[in-house]
């Protein structure tokens, strides 16, 4: 399964990863090799086999509907790369273009 550079660029965009030309070249050949290797799974007939998403047979673990304290805002924002002057909000660069 050979990937193309265009496909790799498309995946990088989906994953929001900025890759330089060298990285795209290397990624194209390495991902192709790994996918070739993974293709051996197709040897197995799994028509009747259910998928395993998790080995724990759990569904919808509920907790009591009760308010519990969260971390204080200053601690939550302490690691933020950028925040508003009043320390109330995370700050990001412009989302909308003019």
């Amino acid at each position, binding site marked *: 399964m050979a990937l193309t550079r265009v496909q790799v660029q498309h*995946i990088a965009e989906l994953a929001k990863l*900025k890759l330089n030309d060298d990285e795209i070249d290397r990624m194209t050949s390495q*991902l192709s090799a790994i996918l070739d290797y993974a293709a051996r799974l*197709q040897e197995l007939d799994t028509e009747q086999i259910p998928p*395993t998403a998790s080995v724990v047979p759990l569904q919808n673990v509920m907790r009591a509907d009760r308010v519990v304290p969260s971390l204080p805002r200053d601690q939550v924002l*302490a690691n933020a790369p950028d925040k508003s002057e009043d320390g109330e909000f995370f700050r990001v660069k412009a989302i909308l273009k003019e």
Partner: protein
Amino acid sequence: MELYRLTVHQARALLEKGEISTTELTRAVLDRIDAVDARVKAYLTIVADRALDQARDADAQWAEHRKNGTRAPALLGIPMAIKDEVCTRGVRTTAGSKILNNFVPPYDATVMEKLNAAGGILIGKTNQDEFAMGSSTENSRYFVTRNPWDLERVPGGSSGGSAAAMAADEALCALGTDTGGSVRQPASFTNTVGLRPTYGRVSRYGVVAFASSLDQVGPITKDVRDAATILGVIAGHDPREATAANLPVPDYESALAGAQLIAPLQGVRVGVPREYFAAGLQPGVERAVRDAIRVLESLGATTQEVTLPHTDYALPTYYLLAPAEASANLARYDGVKYGYRLEESNEMWEVMRATRGDGFGAEVKRRIMLGTYALSTGYYDAYYLKAQKVRTLIKQDFDRVFAAGVDVIVGPTSPSVAFKIGERVDDPLQMYLADVFTLSQALAGIPTISIPCGFDQGLPVGLQIIARAFDEERMLRVAYAYEQATEWHTRKPSL
């Protein structure tokens, strides 16, 4: 006496009698780090002052316990090394990544809360492959950790720092994480004990997520008894982590009783999978493991060949599922809420792309790409869903063997001994092969321990003992009986 060489249970016996203080013990460990860590490079962060403060408190508590004849908590005054994947309140936690280079967690992981409550002293955070993705600790964004047995070789990974710290006596016990072998394979490369608990046995709350259907936290220790102790401390239900099973935690140490008997493994049925002795296994590793199986027989166990026919498919299955889950888990690193941000632009998406492009290293980017692809429209059924189905087959292999009455399954932890630094970094598939024997148990969610079982060309070999889900007791009993009958675990590298 070289206090840093002590195991947890040895140190505890001396602390109980008041023959040593936790301050002496902590200083001995810190001095040891000063003496060897410039060469080994096990630690990313060392918190010496904080550790000595904690040690003074622990000494006061020990004095009270001795005076009143009360039982001290399991780890009171024991210096611990913690993998940097585990959040430690107020102590930088990077997961080996540049994208978390300045992250100071505002809370402790549940396992840290439990270790703290048991009186353990945090010495520092250990180096690892970035986000636990790797088998050599060469994928750390900070530096390469060296194997104390041969400084030109890798300590294994991804919990290589914790394993190296144990081998070099830079703490008394350590914590690692294991998604596809990251506790067991480095333990095998460093002559230490590494235990991957049953999926659901230990809470992952506050542990940096890699692949959530596989991630587990486990101890890396100097011997089996210590692994049992640490597991007992960290195991159990956690209302903050839905997969942490609501089951009682056995007294794992008492499961070790009886090892002194003449035939401690009488009646234990040991399965030896044909597929674990296939091509690619180094002859010296095979020899050591075959010898270990004979020791188990001499202790009373009966052995039989078993078959796990889908073993060969574990590697491709894992390398589709784990990256797929990782690509989702690592979406949170966006340079907004915490961690590193690269401000190359005034546009948010561009900042995010640049932050992630620079903040993540090559292997992490490779896996995010692979996982994103496996989950993308048009490829989901062929890759992700297919791998989930094969995961069922791999789990059924184990179910069948255990249902036939086999108590534990044994084999090599890794097909090779520690390899040279740089030898595999440019070939991801070669690197992935180091995990070929540790992936299928992770996919099946069952517990496994790696223990020292000999040497090949002067380098340690690990024996893997695999048990049914939530049957850590039997696994530990077999491991302990073997350890008591051999002396491999007492061998130390010269540094």
